[in-house]
């Protein structure tokens, strides 16, 4: 009753619940998709998936489920039956190729190797020279050009439907890679905190009607203050050098931030925050603001956002005099720590993809300095960052 499909889809990370499964069963009962894979694919996608960013995950799960790849033993047996390999396979090879097979240690060895790699490998693969997949030079896979290769799956009398999810057209909709001003604004809205403050100057319609009615119909006008966003934000942008590849991303973030927050102050720094920062890149040498002044001036309820790749030589953070531009009396790390201590809510947005973070030691140091409150500059990371700030 599709419970396995449901679990496969769920374990692929598509958030669907029992309710959707019941809907799908209901739809099948009404004969919406009968004995047609493509119809069933469209139907189950319509019902189980609620966001286009999950289409790709769903496609993958669907493929896995319907290829019957439940256990690795199964796929191994299903795809290359022993006798096929021995007879048909050896017949297909000319003597020269047979000789080459020996280079991998004969058929037995080849099969063992195949199984081993299958276990290591989890995803569909194309190109490359090791993994099992299509168009590569690995000994295993489809459409490849390794004479010692074993062809796996593929071709055959697949219906058009199989291709629909194999194409994985929705790949780029996944994982919030796309980020634009509009998207950023939506993410930033998490930070909104509306409050009615200051003087009354908006007509309170509901209140007026209520109190007028209570007043036996004699007009009684009520006023309330306008709702405004009361979040206050300080931003520190890393500029120049290693940040250059991320200029467009940062520009978009900046323009979204500027329209979203009324109380917004921004400063620039290079690589690491030292004792002073600047507000205007053209006058960075003449006009600088001491970080200590910023701490004194802005109260602890300001939310602080750092934007930077945190990629530099470790001594630029840890050592006095480590700055590449001037002599700093105090290590940059201490300044960052002081900011974190003063302001309650801090988040560091990093344009470097988060799976690369562990490879850069300076990045790890900064991450520790901001108490792990570092988020990738993707939509998802931005949302996480904003919910951290609004806690």
């Amino acid at each position, binding site marked *: 009753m599709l419970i396995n499909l449901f679990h496969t889809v769920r374990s692929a990370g598509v958030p669907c619940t029992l309710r959707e499964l019941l809907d799908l069963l209901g739809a099948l009962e009404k004969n919406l998709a009968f004995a047609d894979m493509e119809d069933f694919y469209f139907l189950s996608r319509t019902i189980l998936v609620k966001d286009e960013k999950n*289409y790709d995950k769903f496609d993958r799960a669907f493929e896995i489920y319907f290829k019957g790849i439940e256990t690795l033993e199964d796929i191994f047996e299903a795809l290359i039956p022993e006798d096929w390999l021995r007879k048909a396979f050896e017949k297909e090879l000319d003597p020269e190729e047979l000789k080459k097979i020996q280079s991998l240690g004969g058929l037995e060895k080849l099969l063992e190797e195949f199984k081993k790699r299958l276990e290591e490998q989890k995803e569909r693969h194309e190109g490359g020279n090791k993994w099992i997949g299509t168009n590569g030079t690995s000994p295993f896979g489809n459409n490849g050009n390794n004479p010692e290769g074993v062809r796996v799956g593929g071709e055959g009398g697949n219906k058009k439907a199989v291709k629909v999810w194999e194409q994985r057209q929705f790949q780029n909709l996944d994982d919030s890679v796309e980020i634009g001003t509009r998207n950023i604004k939506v993410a930033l809205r998490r930070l909104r905190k509306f409050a009615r403050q200051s003087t009354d100057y908006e007509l309170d319609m509901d209140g007026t009607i209520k109190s007028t009615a209570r007043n036996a119909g004699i007009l009684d006008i009520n006023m309330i203050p306008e709702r405004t966003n009361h979040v206050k934000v300080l931003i520190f942008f890393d500029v120049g050098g290693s940040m250059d590849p991320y200029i467009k991303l940062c520009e978009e973030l900046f323009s979204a931030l500027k329209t979203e927050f009324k109380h917004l102050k921004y400063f620039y720094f290079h690589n690491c925050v030292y004792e002073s920062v600047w507000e205007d890149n053209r006058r960075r040498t003449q006009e600088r603001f001491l970080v200590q002044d910023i701490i004194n001036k802005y109260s602890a309820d300001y939310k602080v956002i750092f934007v930077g790749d945190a990629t530099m030589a470790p001594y630029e953070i840890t050592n006095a005099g480590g700055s590449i531009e001037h002599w700093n009396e105090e290590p940059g790390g201490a300044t960052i720590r002081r900011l974190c201590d003063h302001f309650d809510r801090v988040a560091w947005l990093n344009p470097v993809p988060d799976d690369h973070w562990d490879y850069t030691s300076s990045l790890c140091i900064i991450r520790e300095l901001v108490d792990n409150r570092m988020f990738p500059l993707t939509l998802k990371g931005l949302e996480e960052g904003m919910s951290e700030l609004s806690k």
Partner: protein
Amino acid sequence: MKFTGTKNYVSTEDLSMAVNATIALERPLIIKGEPGTGKTLLAIEVAESLGMELIEWHVKSTTKASQGLYEYDAVTRLRDSQLGDERVKDIKNYIKKGKLWEAFESDKQVVLLIDEIDKADIEFPNDLLQELDRMEFYCYETGETIKAKKRPLIIITSNNEKELPDAFLRRCFFHYIQFPDRPTMEGIVKVHYPKIKKALVKDALDLFFDVRKIPGLKKKPSTSELIDWLKLLMSDELPDEILKNADTSKAIPPLYGALLKNEQDVQLLERLAFMSRRDQAK
């Protein structure tokens, strides 16, 4: 009752399936997709092909969920009471029915379009949970429960400006209209301009997909822009050669104003064209 597209609307297989599931299970259908891929048009065409009445509810940033149910016009009632109008005695005279009420009340099944739901406040979809689930709501002023006589076919469109809450999504089906591929696009053009010359369509589509491929465009032209552009091309009766020679890398396409809606995009195209001409001149 099955939807397979109409003579004015090309529906892909997956879209038809989504609509048919909606019809069979009487659940609301959420339609997302790039602007200009025919989300709103879908509801109109579904209504037409099924022979149902269409009720449209266009959502704005100020729209509240309760406005779709009903509004109590307290101000008119107040004025009437002060003027001694007889109508004032019956509160029903001051209840203005909303689109949802209209749809629920109808004797025949109708198609209800909730257009651009993402424009409204974040709480908007949450306020409609019960109403869409049970297809009923309670009117406090008159003390009656309005229940749908025939569950309407609800089609909701969204431009993805806000994320919809999970609880809301659970109650709906979902479909993302993908940007049409070339064969579908040819079908769409044929539906709109049956008499258009085949050669013109081919050249125009080549050009159109080329323009869409240019990296860095702020707003890629979509189906509705293509249709407008073709209309212009036809009315201008441009000689065929103009389109044929108008490789995007050499010159900007004729009447580009219909395709590109953004000054920066036009500039980008001009710059690319200039660079390519310069390279050729060398």
